[in-house]
């Protein structure tokens, strides 16, 4: 584990965000685009907390990675609807455009891309979200050459942002779908090795199961464990 660039603690405060756009890009995800009051600039890879408050003052909060570039006037999130997900089901089924939610962020400095380091994102399912933010930022800065993305999903219909990532040059690896360019299956060492050439850092994001696969695949492909940063998504929020 390497050192963090600078060690000044970052203080964030609770604020409010209004839902400006809401969509359901895949059957199990909800996209929210929000206007955040007193917004603080974010780095690609960071997340926000969204907190819901019941009339009896009971609260529930979860963290969600930002999909948007800092330059975007709105902050975009993609929320996977989890079975019995107290917050995700509310955001999918109850929340509407115009609603105001408690928000806090941006949070996190470990799983962030500094926009200058050559990096590979190996991401799966809704774990593609921080990679989307990194790709959008790289595109704005004209530094798409620094970022390689391998996006893993069951099939194109269930993988969020699949078209956008494919357009950006990502290797799209479908485990249950043969798109004619590669057979169905997780990315292999043979596919990863050339993509790791010249790469100093790898970002792994996805479920705990995906992260376990991805760490092993990267190490088997010759990357040092110290160069891997991991963010696990799932029922923890």
């Amino acid at each position, binding site marked *: *584990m*390497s050192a*963090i660039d600078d*060690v000044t*603690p*970052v*203080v*964030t*405060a*609770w604020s*409010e965000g209004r839902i400006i756009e809401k969509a359901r890009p895949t059957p199990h995800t909800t996209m929210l685009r929000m206007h955040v009051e007193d917004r603080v600039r974010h780095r690609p890879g960071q997340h926000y907390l969204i*907190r*819901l*408050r*019941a*009339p*009896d003052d*009971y*609260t*529930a*909060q*979860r*963290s969600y990675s930002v999909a948007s570039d800092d330059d975007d006037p709105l902050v975009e999130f993609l929320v996977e609807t989890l079975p019995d997900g*107290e917050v995700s089901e*509310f955001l999918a089924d*109850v*929340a509407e455009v115009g*609603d*105001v*939610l*408690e928000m*806090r962020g941006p*949070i*996190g*400095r*470990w*799983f962030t891309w500094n926009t200058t380091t050559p990096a590979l994102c190996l991401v799966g399912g809704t774990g593609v979200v921080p990679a989307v933010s990194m790709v959008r930022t790289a595109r704005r800065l004209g530094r798409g050459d620094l970022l390689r993305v391998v996006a893993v999903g069951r099939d194109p219909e269930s993988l969020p942002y699949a078209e956008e990532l494919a357009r950006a040059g990502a290797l799209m690896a479908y485990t249950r779908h043969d798109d004619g360019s590669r057979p169905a299956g997780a990315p292999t060492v043979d596919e990863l090795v050339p993509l790791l050439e010249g790469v100093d850092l790898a970002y792994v994001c996805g479920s*705990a199961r995906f992260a*376990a696969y991805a*760490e092993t695949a*990267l*190490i088997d492909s010759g990357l040092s*464990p*110290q160069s*891997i*940063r*991991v*963010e*696990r998504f*799932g*029922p*923890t*929020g």
Partner: protein
Amino acid sequence: MPVTRGFVRRRRSGHESRLPPGQYDTGSGWPVLTAEATPQIRPEDWSITVDGLVERTTTWTWDEIHQLPLTAYNGDIHCVTTWSKFDVTFRGVSVDDLLDAAGPLPEARFVMAHSSTGYTTNLPLSDVLHGKAWVVWEYGGKPLPREHGGPVRLLVPHLYFWKSAKWVSRLELMAEDRPGFWEQNGYHDRGDPWLEQRYQGDP
């Protein structure tokens, strides 16, 4: 803050009085949260050292630590990502026994827990004294799984679980506080779940 339109509490876990603010009961699940690749450490290669402001820098191997009195923790754990898990059992040794052997110097007021991966987390020394912290290798009667910090992790259950360093290898006693890994990343220096000390700037 105003009420969220349309949101009501629907979970009733039966453990409400044991649930700190903003937490939910994860039930039988035990989510994994780690920022780095999960290391493979063989018990025979593992050791723990207590050093820094101590009279005697002391190291225990896997076999040596098993000679210390075995103690258990039965109770709850709370993760800053908002899950809590009730009635878990860990077994290992009390941090008190390690500190007694090393002899903390009077000026020692903080401890930095180090993992073999390079992960660090800082705690007030008082939070690991007097039966509040353990070094554990058993969970639910079985060896602690690798992804949960096996073979050996720190356990400080009255604080958020990122303070319970996985793959712990060193306890460094310090006079002044210094931020560890998540603390540098904006997380709280103490992390009391009942005070909701999640991030820098919380009370």
